[in-house]
C-alpha cells in the first residue's frame, strides 16, 4: 500500500516538474518588455536587440508609405520622447495618425525601432465626431472609381 502511494506521488511529481519546466522555459524565451518611447530612449543601450513592445501615439504627419517596397515608417510618441519606427508591410485597419499603437520588434543599433508587428489600439469609448459625416461624404472620397453596383 505504502509503496503504491509513493509510486503515484513520484509519477505526479514528475508530471508537475515537467509542467513547471515547460512554463519556465516558455516564459524565459518569450518574455517581451513593454516600454513607452521615453523609457526606451533612456534605456536604449541595455535593450538593444532584445524583443520588446513599444506603445505610444502615432505622431501626426509622420506616416510615410512606399507601396513599391512596402516600407512603412512613422514616429511614436508619449509626449516626452519620440521614436522612429520602420515596418515592412501594411498596418492594421485601425492604425492611423493621432491614434494609439503598440508595435512589437527591436531597437536597432542604427537608432530606429524595427517593428515586426503593429497592433493598433482601439478605443470603444463613444466620442461624437466634431463634424458628423454622411455616406455622401465618404462617397466623394472615391469619386474616380465609384460605379454602379455589380456585386
Amino acid at each position, binding site marked *: 500500500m505504502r509503496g503504491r502511494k509513493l509510486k503515484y506521488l513520484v509519477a505526479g511529481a514528475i*508530471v508537475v516538474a515537467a*509542467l513547471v519546466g515547460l512554463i519556465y522555459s516558455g516564459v524565459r524565451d*518569450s518574455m517581451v518588455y513593454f516600454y513607452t518611447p521615453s523609457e526606451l530612449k533612456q534605456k536604449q543601450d541595455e535593450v538593444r536587440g532584445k524583443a520588446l513592445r513599444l506603445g505610444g501615439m502615432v505622431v501626426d504627419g509622420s506616416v510615410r508609405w512606399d507601396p513599391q517596397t512596402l516600407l512603412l515608417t512613422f514616429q511614436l510618441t508619449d509626449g516626452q520622447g519620440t521614436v522612429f519606427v520602420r515596418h515592412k508591410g501594411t498596418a492594421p*485597419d485601425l492604425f492611423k495618425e493621432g491614434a494609439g499603437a503598440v508595435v512589437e520588434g527591436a531597437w536597432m543599433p542604427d537608432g530606429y525601432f524595427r517593428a515586426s508587428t503593429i497592433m493598433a489600439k482601439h478605443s470603444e469609448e463613444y466620442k461624437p465626431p466634431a463634424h458628423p459625416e454622411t455616406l455622401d461624404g465618404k462617397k466623394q472620397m472615391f469619386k474616380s472609381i*465609384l460605379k454602379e453596383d455589380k456585386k
Partner: protein
Amino acid sequence: MISTLGGFVLFLALGVTLYAAAASVFGARQGREDWLASSRNAVLAHFCLVTLAIFLLEYALITSDFSLRYVANNSTRESLTRYKIAGLWGSLEGSILLWEWLQSLFAALVVARYSDRGPSGCRQLMPYVQAVLQGISAFFLLLMAFAVNPFARIFPIPPDGRGLNPLLEVTDMLIHPLLLYLGYVGFSVPYAFAMAALITGRPTEEWLRITRRWTVVAWLFLTGGIFYGGWWSYRTLGWGGYWAWDPVENASFMPWLTATAFIHSVMIQERKRMLRVWNLVLVTLTFSLVIFGTFLTRSGILGSVHAFADGPVGVMFLAFLALVLLFSFGLVAYRSDQLKGHGELDSIVSRESAFLLNNLVLVGICFTVFLGTIFPLLSEALRGTKISVGTPYFNKVSVPLGMALLFLMGVGPLIAWGRASLNNLKRNFLKPSLAAVAGTAILYALGVHQAEVLAAFAFCFFVIGTIVFEFVVATRTRAKTMGEGFLTAFATLLLKSRRRYGGLIVHLGVVIAIIGIAVSSVYKVEREQTLKSGESLTIGRYSVRFDGLAAGERPTHILVWANLVAFKDGKPVHELMPGQRFYPNQQSPFASVDARYHWNEDLYVILSTFERDGSSATIKVIINPMISWIWIGGGVILLGVIVAVLPERRLALLTMRAKAQVA
C-alpha cells in the same frame, strides 16, 4: 417610459429572486411543502419578469428609441432589424441582461424538469439547487441595478444612434455570442447541483448522474462557440488567422479545458467512486473561470481589442468570484469526511491512470494559459514593469502538452480498468501503433520532414487507429454473435452504447481539427505586393492578377474592392474581390476579405491599401493548407456529442419504427 418600466421590472425581478432563494431554503429546513411550492412559482415568475425586460429592451432597440443610452450606443436608424436585435449583446449592459435571462431560463427549466419527476434524490437537492441558481441571478440583477443599467437614460436625446461596431454587423454576430453564452451559463447548473449536494450532505455520485447531460450539452455549446468564433475571425477579420491567444479567446478556452477534464473524470467517479473532491474542484473551477472570463472580457483590465468597457463592473465581478471560491471550497472542507472515496488506484497502467493523467494535462494547459494571460498584470504588480508573453509562449507550452493529450486520447478509451495486462496492451494497441509508424513513414517518404508535424501526425494516426480498431472489432464481434449484417451491427452498436461511441466520434473530430491546425500553421505561406492594373503576383502554384479597383455604395457604407483573378498552374480558377468598407463617422476602413475555400487548401486575399485613383493596390495573399479540416473537425465533434446525448426513449422509439417499417 421604457426606462422607468424596465428599471422597475428588473428591480422587481431582484426581489422575486431573493424571495425564491430564501423561501426554498426555509421550506427545505422546515419541511414545509407550501413554501417550496411558492419558491418554485417565484422562480417561474422571475423568468417571466426577466423575459419582459428583454422584450422591453428589444422593443426599444427595434423602434430606435434613442432616449435609452444603450440603444443610442448600439444601434442606428438605418441598421437592418436583425442587427438592431443583435444590439442586445453588442456591449456590456445588454450582454449582462442576456446572461441573466439565460440564467433565469435555465433555473425555470430545472424546476420544470426535476421538481417532481426527477431521479431519486432530486427532491432533497432541488431547494438548494434553486437557492444557488437564484443567488447567481441576484448577482447579475444587482450588477444591473448598481453598475450597468441597460435602461439608463441619455440626455439630450441624440437624433441618431452610434450603431454597432461595423465589425459586428455580420450574420455571425447573431450566432457566436449566443453559443458562448449558452455554454457559459449552462455550467451554472452542474455547479448548483454540486453545491446543493454538499449543502445537503449527499456529495456522492448522485449529482453527477443528474447533471451529466447538462454538462455535456453546455460543453457542446462552449465548444461550438469557440470553433464558430475562430471561423468567424478567419472569414471576416482580415488577418488570415483564427486564433491569436488574445485574452478574450483565452477566457473561453480556460473553462473549456476544465470542463473537458470534468467530463472525463466524472466517468472515473461513477465507475470507481474515486476523485470526489477532484470533481467538485473541477466543477467549481469551471464555473469560476466562466465568471473570470466574463470579468476579463468586460472589465477592460487587459486592454484587448475585444474588451469594450471599463467601470465599477470589474470590482463587483472580482468580489463575486471571491465569494464563489470561498463558499465552494469552504463547503468542500466542511464535508471532507463524506468525500473520502472508496476506490483505489491499482496500477499506473490502467484506464483510471490514463484519465487521471489526462486531467492533469488539461488542468496544466489551463494553468499555463491562465498564467500567460495574466502575466502582464502579475509582472506589473510584482516588479513594476509591464512584461507580456505573447503567442510564442502559448505555442511553445501548449504544443507538447497537446501531444501528450493526443497520446492519452488514443490510450484512454481502450486500456483496461484496474490493471492492464501485457496481453491487453498488445491486443488493443499493437495494430494502431503499427498504423501510426507506417503512416508517419509514408508521410516522411512523401517529403514531410518537420519534426513537429511528423510527431503530430504520428499521434493522430495512433488515435485514429485505436478508434477504427475499436469500431471494427466491436462490430465484427457483434455481427458474428448476433448473426447480423455488418451495417446493422454497426448501427445497433452506436445506439446501444451511445456514450462510448459518441465519445469516440468526438475524439475523431478533435484529431481532424488538430491535423488542420498543425498543417495550416506550419505550411502557411503569405506574400504581399503592390500591383498596377494588369500585373500579377505569384505564390506557390498560384498567380493572382489585379484587374483594377471599383467602388460601390452599400446601405451603410462605401465598399471599395479589387478585381482579382486567381490562376492555378496557369489556369484561371476563381475570381476574388477583397475590399475595404468605409463607414461614415469611422476614420479607419474595415477589411472585407475574400477567399477561395477548398477542402485541402484555402487561397485567402486581403486588400491592404490602394491608391484612390485606382492605379494600384497592395494585395496580401495567403495560402492556408488544410485549414478547413478545423471546421470539419468541429462538425464531427457536434455529431459525436449528438450521438452521445440523444435521449434513450426517443431513440428506442425511432429504432422501433424503423424495424416496423422493415417488417
